[in-house]
């Protein structure tokens, strides 16, 4: 897979350059990035470096968290910054899928799995989703497609199940881009590995490009084609995982690589 710098504009999916702030406090400073169709790019930074802010800003959702964004977001040749809220709504969930960090807070605990799937479906499609399509979707993320599971309330799911459901909802409309914000940080090591494999599979089989946001360099290295290092609101280094691990250039990247756990 090609790295960011050698892209032709034909297969370019996303290109952005953003500033973001909460009140007078700047959080992102001229953060630039691009993503090719079908590419997995990891954005790695410490907590507080502006990772989640970027995830929301790219969907034009940051104002719901009291933030302000300026700059440019071009998705599939369309500049998103000038779009109305209703035009953005037709892009969210349809062209951009979002997998947030914690299923415990991101899934409405009172709603049944069936309702969540059906509502996500009707956001961008007419008619009702049929049982077979629901089952295919759930099996896609290794969840049971049974009636009993569909009738469970989101509040009753385990964290692993919830995270898989969030992924299912995000890929329901076959988006070109998946933004995953720390999607494995709430999971145990084994479930974490399984979810990472799932993302790699979705990328391979559906061709979905993934912007994978994480604080954990090691976990993203296994699936990312390219790693961007975010430090204090700016991207300080960018390259394929092998290069980042082997020859980190920026002092912060070097600290990150040095801090990784070594095999005992």
């Amino acid at each position, binding site marked *: 897979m090609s790295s960011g710098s050698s892209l032709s504009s034909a297969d370019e999916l996303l290109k952005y350059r953003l500033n973001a702030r909460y009140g007078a406090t700047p959080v992102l400073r001229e953060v630039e990035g691009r993503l090719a169709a079908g590419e997995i790019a990891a954005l790695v930074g410490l907590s507080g470096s502006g990772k989640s802010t970027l995830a929301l800003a790219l*969907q034009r959702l940051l104002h719901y968290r009291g933030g302000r964004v300026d700059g440019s977001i071009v998705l599939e040749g369309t500049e998103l910054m000038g779009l109305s809220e209703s035009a953005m709504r037709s892009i*969210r*969930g349809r062209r951009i899928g979002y997998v947030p960090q914690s299923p415990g*807070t*991101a899934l409405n605990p*009172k709603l049944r799995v069936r309702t969540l799937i059906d509502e996500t479906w009707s*956001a961008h499609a007419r008619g009702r989703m049929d049982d077979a399509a629901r089952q295919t979707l759930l099996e896609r993320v290794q969840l049971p497609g049974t009636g009993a599971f569909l009738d469970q309330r989101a509040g009753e799911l385990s964290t692993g199940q919830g995270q898989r459901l969030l992924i299912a909802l995000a890929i329901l409309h076959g988006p070109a881009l998946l933004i995953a914000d720390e999607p494995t940080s709430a999971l145990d090591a084994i479930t974490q590995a399984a979810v990472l494999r799932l993302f790699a599979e979705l990328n391979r089989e559906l061709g979905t490009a993934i912007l994978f946001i994480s604080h954990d360099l090691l976990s993203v290295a296994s699936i990312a084609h390219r790693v961007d290092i975010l430090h204090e609101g700016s991207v300080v280094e960018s390259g394929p995982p092998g290069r980042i691990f082997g020859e980190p250039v920026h002092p912060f990247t070097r600290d990150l690589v040095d801090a990784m756990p070594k095999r005992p």
Partner: protein
Amino acid sequence: MIWRRMALIFLVLVGLSAVLAPKVAPYSYSEQFRDSPNAPPGGKFLLGTDDMGRDRFSRLLYATAVSVTLAPAAAALSVLLALVVCAFHGRVLSGLTTIGMSIPWMFLFIILRAELPLNTAPEVSVVLTFALMGVAGWAGPARVLSGSIREMMEAGWMLHARSAGIARWRIAAVYAWPHLRSVAAAQFRALAPAYVLAEASLGLLGLGVAEPVPSWGNLLRDLQHPDMVRENPALLAPLVLLMLCLLALEAFSVRESVQ
């Protein structure tokens, strides 16, 4: 648990007798027996008659029907209005609610009620009395509901629903309503007994439901004459029924909110 069940049974009984008042009551609420005014309780008139010779028991049944159906209806109206107002949430609402809560509604109400033409049909006055209470009472529930809505706006699931491109009204109806429902129900349960009491207070001032339609309020006016009460303790029946109903409603709603 036992108290709650007893309260429920009592409320159902009162509700039933209210609904069935036209069938159960021995006489119409306005029928006058001119030859027996102020009759003592007895065989023909279970609670006696009032000074116009009307059967007190029948009037109490009809009054109960008025209070137990219209007070909850007014409470439902208040909560509904609060929800409508909250749908347009924001700074405007918070200011509006503060103003709404600081208006001395009771006095405004007395003035409004006094402005009604004297020939207003009694049935209209009944509905109007409760409708005005319902309209005036929106601010309290709006404040509580808008607090819950503000909390929901910050919720992760709200942001997630938005990220899925779900339409605003679907988010409100499908995602938010299950959370708001219990808050709205609690407001309703708190307001219903308050409106029963409010009507009774207005009735005492002669500004509630107009004669000859009976209500707990205008029946309680007789208590202004202690000597009459000493003579005929059955006059206390509306007061006792009012207290029992309020007690039952409170017992019922306290348990609910603990859950």
